[in-house]
């Protein structure tokens, strides 16, 4: 049977209601999505059925997972954080600047950490071989960038506003516009891959991927804030998006490392 948006809407509502009930019954707030979130069909065969084994990192400060690989100036070129300057011509679309701060759970800035991004072009098409969406490729836009956070934990990218795109999970399935982020912290346990969205996107209620974060406040943390102070006169719209890495760190790592 053809899977419709209506079917998915009902499943999303049921998952949300189940979470609200868990909360009402005293369960903790869920900051992360569950890996078995059936409205996103690709998760069905790709989530473990056994619970993970929990490791208390305070029992062994030597765990390699409490440290993180190093990235440095050799791993970045000067224009890697400007996705509008990677080709001979300018990409088509609304230029945007995206800036924010990378923090740990204690609110401390994470300095010198690698932030990688990738996204669709302004027409909603990825420069990826397997992408089938019939929207134009932009010869001047690859949609890939990377940077290191600065001494205050800030990252900054210049790019174009990505378009929404259809993805065929169900009839008329559309992803809200987003930028993918991959981030390292000071511990491998803090590793994060996620997606940043734009304010007030009308597609949010229909998208099982953003709705996989069933906690309303947590979901809002995936949405950037328009920041007029970050808009560059005669050039770009500005968005601010702070990122907080979950996962324990080595407590003995000195502030400022």
């Amino acid at each position, binding site marked *: 049977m053809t899977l419709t948006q209506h079917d998915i809407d009902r499943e999303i509502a049921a998952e949300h209601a189940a979470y609200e009930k868990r909360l009402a019954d005293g369960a903790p707030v869920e900051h992360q*999505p569950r890996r078995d979130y059936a409205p996103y069909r690709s998760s069905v065969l790709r989530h473990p059925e056994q619970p993970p084994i929990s490791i208390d990192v305070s029992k062994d400060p030597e765990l*390699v997972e409490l440290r993180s690989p190093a990235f440095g100036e*050799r791993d970045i070129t000067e*224009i890697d954080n400007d996705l509008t300057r990677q080709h001979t011509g300018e990409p088509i679309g609304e230029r945007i600047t995206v800036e924010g701060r990378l923090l740990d759970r204690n609110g401390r800035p994470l300095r010198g950490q690698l932030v990688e991004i990738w996204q669709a072009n302004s027409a909603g098409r990825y420069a*990826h071989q397997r992408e089938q969406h019939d929207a134009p490729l932009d010869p001047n836009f690859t949609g890939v960038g990377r940077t290191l956070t600065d001494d205050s934990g800030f990252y900054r990218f210049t790019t174009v506003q990505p378009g929404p795109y259809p993805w065929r999970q169900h009839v008329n399935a559309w992803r809200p516009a987003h930028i993918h982020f991959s981030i390292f912290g000071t511990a491998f346990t803090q590793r994060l891959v996620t997606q940043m969205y734009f304010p007030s996107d009308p597609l949010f209620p229909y998208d099982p991927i953003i709705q996989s974060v069933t906690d309303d406040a*947590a979901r*809002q943390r995936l949405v950037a804030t328009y920041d007029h102070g970050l808009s560059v006169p005669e050039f770009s719209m500005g968005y601010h998006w702070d990122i907080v890495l979950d996962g324990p760190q080595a407590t003995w790592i000195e502030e400022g490392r």
Partner: protein
Amino acid sequence: MTKIDPSRPETVLPTPSHTVGPFYGHALPFPGGGDIAPIGHPDTIVLQGYLTDGEGNPLPDAFVELWSADPDGNVPQVDGSIRRDPASGGYLGRNGVEFTGWGRIQTDANGHWTARTLRPGARGQSAPYISVCVFARGLLVHLYTRIYLPGDEAALTADPLLARVPAERRDTLIAREQGDGTYRFDIRLQGEGETVFLEFQ
């Protein structure tokens, strides 16, 4: 609200994870991602395996990241895993001399991945292991596991994690020796023979 005020700890809450999706292939994997061992290093080992789903089907749209100590058990603090070429804007590759301890390997169309790295030394109370992080389309939050190497039964028996894993699942964390310094480590996301995955608290 995505401006965080660190002076108000109650507002400092984790950014949720999302799937890496299907279209990261031109962004995250890089040439030589699995060639972690310096060229010609005598402690080089080869790790390889398949990544499969709950029906035993291979995942062609996934990648693993490996992270481990050097042969002396020290944590590498060397950058240069994804060196870039400022002239061409492309990748320069690793320099073949330094050991960064980290690699990222895309699975192929058969769901197979392979990496060359250095045999890690022991740290703390643990037997030597290589930390693994799995990312895939369909996986809303990445998964951690570990690759332990066979051979030193005393060290494996004394390992705090392996001691806690149910006996029938313990083997999912230990690679199988295939000779010539090659080890097989399959990752099964779900179902029969499901790999033991870890969370850190």
